[in-house]
């Protein structure tokens, strides 16, 4: 299953059993992409929220 990276446009090969919410790293630009899966529609969205544990 081929999907385009929303940041650099590179084509990303996704395994059939990819899970909703899984984090995929784009090979070419290193962007962290969260899998949004509803039904058979799959979309990749840039993972945004910062983990609080690192901040003060």
């Amino acid at each position, binding site marked *: 299953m081929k999907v385009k990276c929303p*940041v650099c446009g590179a084509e990303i090969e996704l395994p059939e059993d990819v899970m909703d919410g899984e984090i995929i790293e784009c090979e*070419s630009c*290193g*962007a*962290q992409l969260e899998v949004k899966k509803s039904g058979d529609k799959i979309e990749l969205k*840039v993972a*945004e929220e*910062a*983990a609080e544990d690192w901040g003060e």
Partner: protein
Amino acid sequence: MFKVAIVGASGYTGGELLRILAVHPKVEVKVATSREYAGKPVYYAHPHLRGIYRRLKFTKLESPEQLADVVGDVDLVFLALPHKVSLHFVPKALEIGLKVVDLSADYRLKRIEDYKRWYGYEHPYPDLLEKAVYGIPELYGEKIKGAQLVANPGCNATSSILAVVPIASAGFIDLDHLVVDVKVGSSEAGAKPYRGGHHPEREGTARPYDASGHRHVAELEQAIRDFTGKDVRVGFTPHAVSMIRGSLASAYSWLTKDVKDLDVQRAYAKFYAGKPFIKIIRGPPMPYPDVKNVYGSNYAEVGFALDKRVGRLAMFAAIDNLMKGAAGVAVQNMNLMLGIEEDEGLKYLMPVRP
């Protein structure tokens, strides 16, 4: 198998060059010079390299005239000499047909008047200034490949440039209002003891230095000029902080266009496409660059923070000042100049964390 020489190999940068080249499959260090340690094995200056360079001793090299005999038959020479000493070694090295990576500041700037202003002297070899290529592969990679002379960049200039240039050239920040605040480790000042670098004085410190204009800004302004055509004046203030390695540049400017986080990320992704040592940081697990993530390696972490409320963009880059800021990029330049894979040798040096 290429042969290289390191002139001025007893300092921290010399030690890093030796550390990297020890795992470089296509290059052999034939000569390592040091007046102070002449005749001694390299581990006298670099105890962590004991047993690694079995037969390599420091040789004496005092003047450019001795270059031919001491390093005559190598392919490339690293000049890790103080500023204004390297000045006269470079022409000589080129004369005897060597490729040169000069780690001093003597050939970094293109404009003679910049040497007048920032280094206080009239540059004696203006023609060589033209010939020299500024040694940041992510910006000048193609030119470096064909270069005979590469001027290795300053460490604080490197972190600032890596943070700013992709965004400046994307054209959505106000270049008339750009400041850079750099936090740097104590190894940046080199191995020679001085009061400010004395451990009790440095441990636990956070203090600005050279705050009304640091010479590395000239390299940042030169790079911005090359990539935007604009002649800008940038506020630049380095800070000594309580760590040994690391240079974190935090650059700030105001948006001139309505851009989203994704646009900023795209600008970095486009500029750094295919560059092996740049990691673009955004989101979990750590949203911003940290020098600890690149410690002892040639990697650079680049990130940003858009403050929509203020319309301000913060641009960050974290490097190891001795690696991507000095010896690592010198080897990266060497690889390009000798036609070797850009990350050869360097790819074995993983960041050391925690």
